């Protein structure tokens, strides 16, 4: 049955509006990243979607090469912040996923009552602001300030409830009989978990890990408070891209933003097949 023409028109109009709202800012960032100083400082009719004089100057600039148009020298390049973000977000995701998965499995299979899972979840209810200053004190006492591993640790802790809750829902949905079948065949509990349960959970694990990674990757507040110089992350570094002479370095920020978008997008594409399955995991044959 085909729907009426006017309905189809409305449908596409709605899709177009939604796309515009999400894509225009991103496309604008892409465009800005390739514009020379004169163009991203332009106003009014001088503004164009396509750079008139496309350049890689912005990228060269944040990686420390001098640029003909930007005379302001950078205190430090984007290399270390990118490394810092990659290291802390990845290790933080590993911590959250391994601890969260283990906790979720244990509580899903052996746990009783609803309070313990909820208690873990309530970690998430604290506004990060409320706990960050005490955390700062603790971290400085432990010598974890301004280090990628200190940052990774707090990322792991903060996103743990998220990983835990996602995985718990997935484990609860997985038919227990599959594990019992393996046990009847003489498989130990640990082997059941590593050889049967986890491989069957690949899709949910991948999607949960991606969500956790994105959370860690886009953090600003925690990194702002726990890093000072050496290991600032991309968002913190991005905020510092300005100078008294030129004001906000929008072109450089756009270039950095473009780089920052790469890892999540790549990861997303890599696990795309799993992502759809992971989100529809409940559809397992019961």
């Amino acid at each position, binding site marked *: 049955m085909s729907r009426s023409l006017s309905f189809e028109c409305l449908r596409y109009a709605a899709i177009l509006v939604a796309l515009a709202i999400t894509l225009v800012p991103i496309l604008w960032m892409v465009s800005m990243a390739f514009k020379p100083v004169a163009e991203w400082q332009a106003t009014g009719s001088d503004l164009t979607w396509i750079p008139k004089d496309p350049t890689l100057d912005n990228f060269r600039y944040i990686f420390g090469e001098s640029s003909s148009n930007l005379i302001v020298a950078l205190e430090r390049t984007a290399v270390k912040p990118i490394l810092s973000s990659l290291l802390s977000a990845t290790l933080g995701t590993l911590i959250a996923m391994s601890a969260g998965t283990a906790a979720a499995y244990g509580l899903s299979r052996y746990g009783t009552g609803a309070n313990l899972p909820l208690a873990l979840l309530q970690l998430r209810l604290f506004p990060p602001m409320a706990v960050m200053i005490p955390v700062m004190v603790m971290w400085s006492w432990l010598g974890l300030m301004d280090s990628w591993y200190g940052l990774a640790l707090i990322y792991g802790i903060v996103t743990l409830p998220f990983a835990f809750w996602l995985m718990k829902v997935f484990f609860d949905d997985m038919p227990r009989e599959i594990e*019992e079948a*393996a046990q009847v*065949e*003489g498989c130990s509990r640990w082997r059941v978990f590593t050889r049967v349960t986890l491989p069957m959970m690949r899709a949910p694990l991948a999607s949960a890990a991606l969500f956790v990674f994105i959370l860690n990757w886009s953090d600003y507040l925690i990194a702002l408070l726990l890093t000072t110089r050496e290991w600032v992350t991309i968002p913190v570094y991005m905020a510092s891209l300005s100078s008294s002479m030129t004001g906000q370095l929008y072109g450089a920020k756009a270039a950095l933003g473009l780089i920052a978008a790469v890892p999540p997008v790549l990861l997303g594409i890599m696990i795309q097949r799993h992502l759809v399955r992971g989100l529809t995991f409940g559809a397992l044959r019961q």
Partner: protein
Amino acid sequence: MSAIRLENLVKRYGSFTALRTMDLLIEDGEFMALLGPSGCGKSTTMNMIAGMERPSEGRILFGDRDMTGVPMGRRGVGFVFQNFAIFTHMTVRQNLSYGLRMAKLPQAETERRTLAIAEFLRLTPFLDRRADGLSVNILQRVAIGRSAVMEPAIFLLDEPLSNVDAAFRAVMRAELKQLQRQFRQTMVYVTHDQLEAMTMADRIAVMDHGVLQQVGRPIEVYNDPVNIFVATFIGAPGMNLLKGRPVQTDRGLAVDLGPLGISPPLGSAQACALRAASGEVIYGFRPEQASLAPPGEGIPGSVTFEERIGARSIVHLGEGSTAFRAVFEKDVPLAMGDVAHVLPHPDAVRLFDASTGRVLKG
């Protein structure tokens, strides 16, 4: 060696008793069906035999060995689940050989046995397919194969055919029976489908509300139910049960069925049973063990509904407490509203105590 003996088995969940003192001996090489409605305790019994659940009281013995505290991996039983429990991330071959690989058998042996069971269950074309894309019918074969390949002395099946389609169910009934004949395992088969139990089992254990009601060969359970639960649960439709009182007629002892009049005179065995009874009795006969009779001879009832299944027809007669059914293998000249007189075969009549529901024996 692999007889299963359940001794005083009890299972409680908190204050709820799922299974009350069950005693059952399943002989070596026997095909035993645990039959009953949902929630009767049959799956609980099965899970305790497999070791997935621990009994609250009682013992489970395989042969002479007490297995009560032995974990499920070391009981050496095969288990087929209702929802197949296939490892979807593996191929059919990997699923079938899983237990053999767990047991660390030599590779050649693993390969040989995997291929043999695949051949037996006609799974050879699917060996290298991943399990998550296969149809329900094939998945259930894989599940059966995965357990059978281990050649367990005890094979437990928990409603294995309830998720597959009707045509395939008929095929599998024959194949399972053949499998058991070939390997001579002790098989315990949980089902709520009496057709499966009747066609495959050597003996049937009928359960209800956590209580074992009757154990016997299918024909025994069908012909001589011990109580009105078994009488109505076995048979499709179940046994007709009509309330009445003993009465002496000039043609012998009979049952006064109230509004339905006096029953046909009882045979000698039932008459003898009736003499032992006191008070109200229940007069029972199988719908398929009756024939039409001229007025004055059978039990009268007006036709309220007729179900035709091919040549077979199930005629519903009477209403409320005096309703009963009759099954005829050939076309009968009856229409809605007609009054039919149904005469139970004298040998087919069974009498039950109205207060306890137990069968009356002479």
